[in-house]
């Protein structure tokens, strides 16, 4: 769906995007994470054919961003981080305008607007003026506008910034629904929990550089060199710790309170062998689990020291 090769954008001496290379497959939900000013917006705008890259290529749905911006625009729904709304305009007129701007035939528009309003839960606000909507509703309306021409790919730049927790959850549920409808989503954020449940792939960007790309679990594994295990034994914790440390497929055993944190480096399918060995040696194991891949700690590890 998206193939990016060596994409670079400079503003004077500042390199906003530096040699980015990644790809997103159809149906993926790709999270673009980085602190403010890392180059997320620049990258998304280049993908939406709104900003000319200095170097590199990007193709979206088979269309080259530089050569065929029309094709890119037809297949992309772009939601900017800072969007304005028109005064003196009703909700349905706003959507009708954008549908017309995307060359949706007028016969199809009323039904389309009804569907999109229903999806974004704004049906009751059809005849309200746009500038009378709350911020969360405006954000949902902008999302409705983004999907009005039924694009395959959604480029969403910080869709939940500045929203209260409730509105944020509503947006997230909406995005999950869109994901299940088969849309490919590229979403940027500096708020991590927002992406955790939604994305199956992430890219971490800082100072214009892509630090890491891949599935959340893969990145975690890459960082740790293995799977994080959390093992709780009823007693003889120190003994269990020594036992684990002696095994060749286990590295870095740490004892924190009652739980043992260990990194498993062996064959993922043979992970249960560790449990078997523990039980056979007479340790009373009450819990044996993989640690949940937590995006926040992943992010903190990756960006450690670079920001400060």
């Amino acid at each position, binding site marked *: 769906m998206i193939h990016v090769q060596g994409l670079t954008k400079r503003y004077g001496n500042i390199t906003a995007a530096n040699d980015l290379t990644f790809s997103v497959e159809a149906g993926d939900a790709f999270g673009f994470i980085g602190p403010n000013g890392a180059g997320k917006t620049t990258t998304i705008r280049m993908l*939406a054919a*709104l*900003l*000319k890259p200095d170097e590199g290529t990007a193709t979206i749905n088979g269309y080259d961003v530089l050569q065929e911006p*029309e094709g890119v*625009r*037809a297949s*992309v729904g*772009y939601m*900017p981080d*800072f*969007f*304005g*709304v*028109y*005064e*003196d*305009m009703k909700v349905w*007129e706003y959507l009708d*305008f*954008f549908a*017309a*701007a*995307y*060359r949706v*035939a*007028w016969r199809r528009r009323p039904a389309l607007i009804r569907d999109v309003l229903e999806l974004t839960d704004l049906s009751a606000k059809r005849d309200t003026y746009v500038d009378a909507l709350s911020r969360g509703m405006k954000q949902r309306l902008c999302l409705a*506008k983004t999907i009005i021409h039924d694009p395959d790919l959604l480029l969403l730049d910080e869709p939940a910034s500045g929203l209260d927790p409730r509105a944020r959850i509503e947006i997230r549920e909406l995005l999950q629904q869109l994901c299940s409808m088969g849309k490919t989503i590229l979403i940027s954020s500096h708020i991590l929990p927002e992406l955790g449940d939604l994305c199956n792939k992430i890219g971490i960007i800082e100072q214009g550089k892509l630090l890491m790309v891949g599935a959340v679990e893969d990145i975690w594994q890459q960082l740790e060199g293995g799977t994080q295990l959390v093992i709780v034994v009823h007693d003889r914790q120190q003994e269990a710790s020594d036992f684990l440390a002696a095994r060749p497929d286990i590295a870095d055993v740490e004892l924190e309170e009652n739980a043992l944190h260990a990194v498993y480096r062996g064959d993922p399918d043979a992970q249960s062998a560790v449990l078997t060995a523990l039980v056979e040696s007479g340790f009373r194991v009450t819990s044996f689990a993989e640690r949940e891949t937590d995006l926040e700690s992943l992010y903190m590890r990756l960006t450690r020291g670079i920001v400060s």
Partner: protein
Amino acid sequence: MRVPGLNIEDTLKRCFHFNPCIAVHELRMRMRGARPFVVLFFYALLAAATVLITLAVISLQSSYYYGTPDTDPTPGRPAFAALAFSQLALILFVIPAYAAGAITMEREKHTLEMLRGTLLSPADVVTGKLVVVLAFGVLLLLTSAPVAAWCMMLRGISPAEVALTYSSLLIIALWVATLGMLFSVLLKRTTAAIVATYITVVVWCGVPALLSALVHNLARGWSYVYANLLTLSFLVMTVGTVFGWLVFLICRMYAARGSTRSATRAGTLVSALIACASVTLVFGVLLVPLFEAGLTGSGARATLVAAPYGGPVLILFAEDFVASRSRMTVPETQLIACAVTGGIYLIIAIFFWIRSIVLFEERKWAV
């Protein structure tokens, strides 16, 4: 928009590759609420006031000199001239305020980026906005049409002359609308674009007037009291614009200090109306008698044709011209004046229009 069997949108798309949605959208926003109707109402009121005051001035003059108020057999002509020139001044004052904000407002409201993300072409955006500005100009001119009909009933002006004057006013409106649009594409802020449009109008209208004044003064010596037609037209066109803008700013300083948003808006609207009224009265009513006085001693028709106001001036005062120095008949002079000045400004307007589209396209990568 929905006529069974025929759809304007489909037809435009199919035949001209023009997507009219910007025009529809602009019309929805601009014609909503009471504001446009208040503007039209006051415009009609001003047009009527101009004619009434002109007629009053004529009869007062007549009473003063001849002892009876109705010595002029054709009061319709000076009344219509006053109407036409007040409209000219108003068009140049009002249209830039509408046109110069067309693109810059989108930029200021952060909607331009979303617009560029759609499948609208630069021509769709620029032309769509231009169509609406022009439609508003046409609406303003039409509002004054009943007053023009009233002038015709007073004798002295024919329907053909009214039609010619209105068509040259329309072309001036087109010219200034495309000029405003060009600055709207070029500049970042609305205020800058409006000011740049006003300054260009002033300089553009002033250069022919100054050239002609120079030629006359060189020919006749500096002691000649210069009441040239061009200088007066220049006054109507340019000083009128600047004057109106100043009145607007001064009024707004006092009127638009409301605490709420609607109070501020109402203050701005009132200031704009006061500014329009003063432009009309000062430059429509008071200067037209001077026009007629200035005509007999003027010449330099080449510079007059090159000036944007040449059309209406030559049409309305053709008689004086022909009487003094021409071999052509009055209708011929009027027709040629309308065709030449109209043609020149139509070509310039088309150039500005295409240039705006090209510039909008060139800047697509840099919002």
